[in-house]
């Protein structure tokens, strides 16, 4: 196709071809199969771009919602399977549960005394991305880097993933944690503000991380202001309340 053809496609879709040009255009659609095919692709590309870019926020929210409902539905099933027949995948699950218990214990012991600092609270759970997309190498790299606290490397891989799937908010959340860990506070703040002002299931988690972002910079009043917005039904509500008391 020539440049002129694509310009015509656009003019046709916008609806400002002259009557004469429109007639010629329609005739060519019928008589020239390559022209027709290219036009169909052009049209589908336009519709796809429009959806992915204009609905970015909505897609983001939908995926978060779906994630939560899917986990709720499948956690009971995975637990059942664990009891019936332990498989390599469910072993991983057992270790993950064990690990998070250890993390929780450590967290409570650690938290008994002293004035609060970021390091008291940055015991992030191990993330698991490979179950979801076994064939994708970058997900397993991201997971490894993040879980072994190579946050700089993790950010590089998160960015690769986000380039292909910019509305993946789970990755955006993990990236924000990695940003806080590596003291890139401003970028973290922008990302976390976007996540916590959204309407997704990651909203409250993002608020908590945003509070930690301020805590790490010793911005206590900003930290308290964010902590106040974490609602009672949020996973981190209790910890947020405790932190708020200690800061007061």
């Amino acid at each position, binding site marked *: *196709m020539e*440049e002129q*053809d*694509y*310009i015509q*496609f*656009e*003019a046709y879709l*916008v609806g400002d071809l002259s009557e004469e040009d429109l007639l010629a255009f329609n005739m060519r659609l019928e008589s020239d199969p390559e022209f027709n*095919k*290219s036009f*169909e*692709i*052009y049209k*589908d*590309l*336009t*519709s*796809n*771009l*429009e*959806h*992915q*870019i*204009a*609905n*970015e926020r*909505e*897609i983001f*929210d*939908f*995926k978060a*919602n*779906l*994630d939560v*409902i*899917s986990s709720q*539905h*499948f956690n009971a*099933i*995975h637990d059942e*399977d664990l009891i019936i027949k332990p*498989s390599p*995948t469910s072993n991983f699950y057992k270790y993950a549960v064990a690990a998070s218990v250890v993390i929780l214990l450590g967290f409570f012991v650690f938290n008994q005394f002293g004035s609060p600092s970021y390091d008291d609270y940055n015991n992030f759970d191990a993330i698991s991305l490979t*179950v*979801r*997309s076994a*064939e994708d190498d970058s997900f397993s790299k991201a997971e490894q880097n993040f879980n072994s606290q190579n946050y700089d490397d993790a950010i590089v891989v998160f960015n690769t993933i986000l*380039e*292909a*799937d910019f509305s993946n908010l789970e990755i955006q959340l993990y990236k924000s944690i990695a940003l806080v860990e590596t003291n890139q506070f401003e970028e973290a703040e922008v990302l976390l503000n976007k996540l916590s002002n959204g309407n997704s299931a990651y909203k409250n988690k993002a608020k908590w991380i945003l509070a930690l972002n301020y805590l790490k910079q010793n911005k206590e009043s900003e930290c308290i202001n964010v902590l106040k917005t974490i609602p009672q039904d949020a996973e981190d509500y209790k910890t947020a309340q405790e932190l708020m008391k200690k800061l007061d």
Partner: protein
Amino acid sequence: MSDKKLHEDQKYIDGLAENNAFIIQAIYDKFAPKVINYIKQNSGDAYDAQDVIQETIITIYNQAKQKKLQLTCPFDAYFFLLCKRKWLNQLKKSKGKEVTINEEVLSKDDDAQVLSFETSIFENKQALFNEMFQQLGDACKDLLKATFKIKSMEEVAKSLDITYAYARKKKSLCIGQLTKLVKASPKFNRLNY
């Protein structure tokens, strides 16, 4: 398709497009168990089923938002065929696994076959389109992102400090470049153009 009667299960399609949590929940409660059973009987486990179902729902959502998907068959049959096809394709990809197809659970619903096939094609298109978008230069990427986010071409031109005519010309040439990339891809023949 347009002259066919919409099935009452269209409510699931509309609910997904609206991000209605009750509808998503209902889809899991009503239609997931059959898929989980099928995948477990065919060399998979519940984790595989979780992924297949989640990816399938995202595809239906994307198509529903973009193409106004019109369901003329029960959602059950349509959804099951999509999940089944996705799972069998994954099995084919990962070598060494024997593919057993339990014929009893195959649906005979013609509309469901046609519609689920269209959705699979839609999914292939979207995957390839997104892949090719990444191959565009930054100038095209930025212009297209601005174009579809801001919608008014006049404002896009203003924000990028170029004239309206030039912005529109660039937009059509960038999408033209994408068209060429898509056509030249080895995966193009899977798109049914």
